[in-house]
């Protein structure tokens, strides 16, 4: 039995679907951010699997994943700063309460 590329892409698809579900249904800002991390992680896994199976002599997918991880870290830090600021102003982190910037 061999582990082909689909063995890595199928878990990635299912993880992405979980992320979409959480992104739509969660009400808390930090929980939404957690779902976002799931989706980013699924995309990273795709990059690495395609790189390893289609172009084993090159490193483009790996380098893209490295940059994606760095950018995800920056994005998470800024998002958490914004969430803490919202918590100071509004008093909780429920998305239904954060309507000041809606229109």
């Amino acid at each position, binding site marked *: 039995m061999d582990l*082909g590329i689909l063995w890595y892409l199928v878990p990635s698809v299912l993880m*992405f679907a979980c992320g979409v579900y959480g992104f739509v249904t969660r009400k808390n800002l930090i929980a939404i951010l957690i779902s976002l991390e799931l989706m980013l992680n699924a995309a990273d896994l795709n990059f690495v699997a395609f790189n390893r199976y289609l172009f084993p002599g090159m490193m483009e997918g790996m380098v893209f994943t490295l940059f994606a991880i760095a950018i995800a870290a920056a994005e998470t830090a800024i998002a958490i*700063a914004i969430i803490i600021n919202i918590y100071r102003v509004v008093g909780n982190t429920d998305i239904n309460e954060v309507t000041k910037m809606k229109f």
Partner: protein
Amino acid sequence: MDSVGNIILYFIVAISMLVFSVMAVTSKKILRAATYLLFVLLSTAVFYFQLGYQFLGAVQIAVYAGGIMVLFVFSILLTHRPDDTSGSIESHRRVAGVCGSILGAALLLFALFSMPVTPEGGSLIGVLQAGPDITMKMIGETLLSTEKYHYLLPFEAVSVLLLACIIGGVVVARKR
């Protein structure tokens, strides 16, 4: 042909990854959701190790499990009182979420399994070819030189982005 131990490890990691992803988006308590996310990230790191990218797996553990998760736990503890049950993360729009994610997953899986096999012998679903070992020297040269397929400019752009992120984080989150 993969060894039996490799396949057993694959199944353990894949099943734990799927179970913990589902739990991370359905758990009622947000601190538990963050912990389940940590397990998903560690399983992904094991996949990277299994595919032969040791440096990437180490980066995944160090940056995600070490950095981002600590940020998550800090912010959860800053914005939630442990004894407060009213601020739960109860789900809403559950039907839309289930429909959207199942439709999306079905579409993606259909696209994956109807994927055409590449002309020269089915490398897309074929076995893993032995790639060269990726040494730290190769990674360093790829990230820090300017030839074709080398990435000095994006590397510097990421460093500027991180600087902007530090300043932005301080400015956004400071007390007025």
